[in-house]
């Protein structure tokens, strides 16, 4: 597992039904592309977050496939329409098999 991998999300605490809310996510990760070489000329193995998903109450909101062109600390921002109180579940998948998760609750009035 890469060091210092910390997922973070920012979601409004409450909203009105049918509102489009802005969801911001960030995960600290080196995103080593696999294309670089170290000082001795040996390839540095690729280690990136290769997939990011967000679900709301079990329903998929976004499912992102990520490739080595994405830089360090990938940041995703998107809008989601919420109709009911519930929680967003965020998941990041690492090349090394690690899975990082985070949740954020939102109250819909």
């Amino acid at each position, binding site marked *: 597992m890469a060091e210092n991998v*910390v997922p*973070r999300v*920012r979601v409004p605490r409450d909203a009105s039904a049918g509102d489009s809310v802005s969801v*911001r996510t*960030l995960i*600290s990760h080196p995103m080593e592309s696999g294309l670089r070489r170290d000082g001795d000329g040996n390839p540095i193995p690729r280690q990136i977050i290769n997939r990011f998903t967000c679900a709301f109450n079990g329903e998929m909101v976004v499912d992102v496939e990520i490739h080595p062109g994405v830089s360090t*600390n990938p*940041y995703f921002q998107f809008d989601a329409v919420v109709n009911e109180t519930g929680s967003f579940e965020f998941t990041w998948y690492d090349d090394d098999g690690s899975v990082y998760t985070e949740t954020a609750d939102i109250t819909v009035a």
Partner: protein
Amino acid sequence: MTRKSLLGGVSAAVFAFAAAGVGLADIRTGDSLVINGEIPIVTETEPAAHLEGALSTVYSGWVFRTDETRAMQADDFDNPGMLYVEQGIDAFNTVMGSEGNSCASCHENPESLANVRPSYPQWDAEHGMVQTVEMQVIECQTERMGMEEPYGYDSQQMRNMVALIASVARGQTVDVAIDGPAADAWELGREIYYTAYGQMELSCAHCHEQNYGNLIRADHLSQGQVNGFPTYRLKNANIVSVHNRFRGCIRDTRGEPYGIGSPEFVALELYVASRGNGLTVEGPAVRN
């Protein structure tokens, strides 16, 4: 004929000199920066007394950046530099060295160090020299925490720690002392600032005093203020120390830079910091 061409050369040179000068045409001044909606930042202010005649207004580097880059600094979630501040917090609470102390053992919490960044570099009577924040961290680690190998001056760990110390001081007015025992170092720093270096024969002042706002290749020159350091640089995807930036500038003049942490760079940091007296601490700022 010779005389005429000589005169022609002189008048051309005079014209070129007159055409140089600050160029704020492309720069939108007058905007204000508030971080997280609660920390007001002074991005434009009156110059300190010692700058009389050199600058009419002191501008933070934030003013010279694009709207997108400016916006990144306005919210900690969007500011990638805050990731390093978080690592600094972890280190702050971690026991290091043989004495069983963490930073928190003496300093309780990072906020208790909020008065540090605005007044550094400053004179340290005990050691008889001007010290930067980095030197102060090394002093704590070697003299009070029993670390045989303190953080390297420009190491990632050091930058994280200095970024933490800057972050808790954001919004506080930069006010470094330039008189008293610090005066000698300040004079040395000023001399370095106005000395042309390298094959390009460029001084700090050529770019950052006489041409701020103008383009250098595709980028706008700033006044070279250091109130936003350690700064998250988009090109590095990491935070960068003041001395690292100094080194980069002198390298770009095709000169031989002073060493990171050298007395010359400490003096230059003191002088440049004093040019920003009146601005507020922004570190970690976001820049190109």
